[in-house]
């Protein structure tokens, strides 16, 4: 009993399409190439992390998927529809990186405004707002102006505003930036809860350690994806080795490391230096560091090591 077979097919096709699809996205801002052929897909119900340093193009990528910017090339699709299709907006929630709520409105007034913009019936709004205020623990601050909230509370309010219409796809741009560690853990717990409920979540973060909390991550640098996969598989496929450099005079040790081609990345870890070295190159490095009074101690590689070495490799 299909009256419009061709339309029915289109609907089925849209239903089968990935939640998010970026195909060769490119965008330049003057001399800066923010997106350089970025390609990735996020399946329905997935928690995908877009990880990358400042200026990698994460915000531009998320805006492209929210249909908010003009693209020089490529195609951004959401739930099988063009990203800037009006129908998509009812089904997607966005939490921008920068402050984007109304500072002079209270927590409750901001929520009410967005519930009206999404034309939620009053009872539906009341029920959802109550639940969101509970899980974000913003209830006691209902009458506080948004500009008087702490960084973490503000992020939670922005999250609540993006969730009011119960989107199928949630886009979060650096939701944990400027948030204390406790709130950060809470926020990630919430995201996992949403994904369990069937929501698709794309989250960007500059913190490499947060990558481990995602179902799949994409490492972004200079507008492109360098690496993509599930966290355990990525770590398992790491070809280099990680070491801690102990002792020695810091400046001279750093100069020696900078001179050595096999050292892919070096970053301070407290008093010591953490380095990533090409597989098998450690013994030779240890010999050249010995006269400086420094020794190498092997450590388990983590995401930061993996990402830093890949980014350095790419930038070199």
């Amino acid at each position, binding site marked *: 009993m299909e009256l419009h077979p061709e339309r029915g097919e289109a609907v089925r096709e849209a239903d089968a399409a990935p939640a998010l699809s970026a195909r060769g996205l490119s965008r330049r801002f003057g001399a800066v190439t923010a997106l350089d052929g970025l390609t990735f897909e996020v399946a329905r119900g997935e928690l995908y992390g877009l990880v990358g340093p400042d200026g990698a193009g994460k915000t531009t990528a998320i805006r492209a998927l*929210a*249909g908010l*910017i003009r693209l020089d090339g490529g195609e951004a699709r959401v739930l099988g529809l063009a990203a800037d299709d009006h129908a998509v907006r009812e089904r997607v929630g966005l939490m921008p990186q*920068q*402050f*984007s709520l*109304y500072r002079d*409105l209270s927590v409750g007034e901001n929520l009410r*405004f967005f519930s009206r*913009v999404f034309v939620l019936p009053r009872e539906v709004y009341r029920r959802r707002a109550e639940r969101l205020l509970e899980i974000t623990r913003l209830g006691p601050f209902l009458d506080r102006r948004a500009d008087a909230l702490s960084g973490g509370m503000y992020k939670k309010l922005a999250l609540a505003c993006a969730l009011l219409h119960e989107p199928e796809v949630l886009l979060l741009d650096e939701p944990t930036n400027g948030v204390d560690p406790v709130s950060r853990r809470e926020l990630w717990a919430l995201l996992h809860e949403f994904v369990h409920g069937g929501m698709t979540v794309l989250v960007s973060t500059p913190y490499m350690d947060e990558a481990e909390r995602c179902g799949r991550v994409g490492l972004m640098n200079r507008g492109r994806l360098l690496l993509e996969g599930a966290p355990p598989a990525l770590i398992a496929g790491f070809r280099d080795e990680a070491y801690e450099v102990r002792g020695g005079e810091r400046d001279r040790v750093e100069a020696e490391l900078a001179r050595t081609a096999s050292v892919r990345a070096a970053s301070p870890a407290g008093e010591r230096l953490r380095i990533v070295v090409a597989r098998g190159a450690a013994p030779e490095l240890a010999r050249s560091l010995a006269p400086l009074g420094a020794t190498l101690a092997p450590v388990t590689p983590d995401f930061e090591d993996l990402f830093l070495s890949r980014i350095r490799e790419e930038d070199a």
Partner: protein
Amino acid sequence: MKGRIRRSLVRIYAMAAKEGRHIVRDPRTLYMSLGMPVLLLFLFGYGVAFDIDRIPLAVVDQDRTESSRALVHALTASRELVSVGELPDPAAVLGAFRQERAVAALVVDEGYERALLAREVVPVQLLVDGADALVANQLLAKADALVRAESQRLASAEVGETTPPVRVKVWTRYNPDGRSAFYMVPGLAAYLLAITAVLLTALTIAGEWERGSMEQLFASPIGRLEIVLGKLLPYLGLGLLEFLLVVAFGMIAFDLPMRGSGFALALLGLVFLLGMLGQGLLVSVIAKNQTVATQAGTMSSLLPSLLLSGMIFPIENMPVVLQHFSRVIPARYLVHGLRGVLLKGNGLDVLWPDLLALAVFALVVIGLATARFQRRLA
């Protein structure tokens, strides 16, 4: 379809209610729209002198003699007064004033030449449209000088005559006291309304860009026209309040009369405000930041409204290019319409061209603002 309209109305309401909150919480907005105009009106409410020429003069010549024609010629020879034609009788003068074909009328009664020849003192009447007090005052001075000269000429033509035979009797209509505040206040009201209205909205969309909230808005289902209309509504209310306040203040402080209907007045204010608020939206859609929007908003409303609206400089005295340019300045129509409603008691029958011009302007700028309003962050 019905559901779509209802959803659209809910979103417009959401926008309007939110914007209303911003207004109530920002003392600067309230001061700019309600406090400042009254203050400025008070400060600037007193007239300044300006020079004028080429005043349209209607002639009612009931004598139709050589002498009466000589008098008309003497008055119009200098080009300060320009004859716009003859009227059949004095009763037609008021009609000409209303339609603004003339701001002055010379009435020469039958028997003018006969009386002159009989060496009597002959009264001629000069009727002046006092709604324009600046014009009226200068006109009186000029007409007096011109008639006196003509009178001297007549006297010296006769032998040894010392009394000038022609005397001017002046009737000022609409503004019998010749008070310049009557002339200035409607102009100032229009001017103040113009600049505050443009600035009020110029700041609002630019503010959304600057505060980053545009990103959240664009990601939501709210449409561009919904944003524009939602933002217009509360400022329209505020603008109307400002308008009524300014007019009421003019009545109290300057004894401004209110001869027309309140409905005509409100309608005039409403349509004018729509246009100016729309102009502000257009400015802020293009400017994207509050500093630029403020400057562009001020420039696009302050100077034209001040110089080209006819508030200070009568439009008929402007260079032709500027006269044409003034046609796209909404303040021109408000100044004109306000003077008509307040001072002459004009109704919609006379007012409609002004209303129409204002409505066209409003439609064009709101349409342009919506079209130029791109749903893109970059």
